């Protein structure tokens, strides 16, 4: 450290530049963090204002005998791209079963209540036990983070007798 305080000699010049490089790196890293954090925080992948996801099937209030159903995902004014593929005005479907919306500025969890369709699927076969269940679609970007604005369907309720 002492040397850095006396950068006049040619011997110290290299150390000075190394020090500067370190500081530059730290600043760049800090800058990168500052730049990245708000993007992650905001879930900011843009999508057209009129993008819409909805259930083609089942309908709200449907009674599904046996509990096995092909859920068909409707999408308007936007396109599907598999997870990991960053293309303008696209995303992939997530089906929320018996759960409320997750935080909308974070990656959607992947568990039995949050099913990801990262291969670009537009429908899925699911099986539910007897009782009332809620279903909701949430569209998200290549990193599984919801878009800005958020594209989500109405939460519907179905009954398995």
């Amino acid at each position, binding site marked *: 450290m002492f040397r850095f305080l006396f950068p006049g000699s040619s011997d110290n010049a290299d150390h000075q530049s190394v020090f500067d490089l370190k500081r530059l790196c730290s600043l760049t890293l800090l800058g990168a963090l500052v730049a990245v954090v708000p993007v992650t925080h905001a879930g900011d992948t843009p999508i057209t204002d009129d993008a819409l996801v909805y259930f083609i099937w089942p309908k709200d209030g449907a009674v599904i005998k046996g509990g096995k159903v092909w859920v068909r995902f409707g999408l*308007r004014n936007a*396109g*599907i791209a*598999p997870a990991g593929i960053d293309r303008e005005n696209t995303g992939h479907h997530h089906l929320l079963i018996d759960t409320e919306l997750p935080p909308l500025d974070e990656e959607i969890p992947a568990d039995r209540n949050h099913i990801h*369709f990262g291969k670009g699927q537009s429908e899925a076969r699911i099986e539910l036990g007897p009782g009332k269940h809620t279903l909701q679609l949430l569209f998200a970007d290549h990193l599984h983070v919801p878009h800005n604005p958020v594209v989500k369907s109405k939460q519907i309720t179905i009954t398995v007798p």
Partner: protein
Amino acid sequence: MTASLRKLLSASWLCTAAISLAAVLATATTVQADDRSSAPADAVVYIGWPNDGEVINRRKFRVWFGLRNMGVVPAGTAFRDAGHHHLLIDTDLPEADEEIPADKHHRHFGAGQTEAVIELEPGVHTLQLLMGDHNHVPHNPPVVSKKITITVK
């Protein structure tokens, strides 16, 4: 060497040459087929709406694309077991190993759409869906829907 033996040898040479040529041709054909993107054997594309035989009382209507056991990816991006929809209107299937034409009879949905609003003149029309890969070439095996007939009033 007797003349008959010579004849036999030359015939067998010709035979070998013919077989080799056939093999080369077969390989060429196979290579061409392999150039196409593969699709899962159980992939199904279908027209969710309208139904076959549907009579529609408006010129502008929404067509819903159904796809099972396969995914959607926009044109230009290669992705395993995925592709994008093409709607064939009033036409037969194009060549299986070539880029699907883009005209009023072959509508491309390269932005990854899964439904579309189309407008047709009154009359009887046919609709058929055909999946294409990132280069708009049908898959191997081709993923194609039933051709349906509708009437627009």
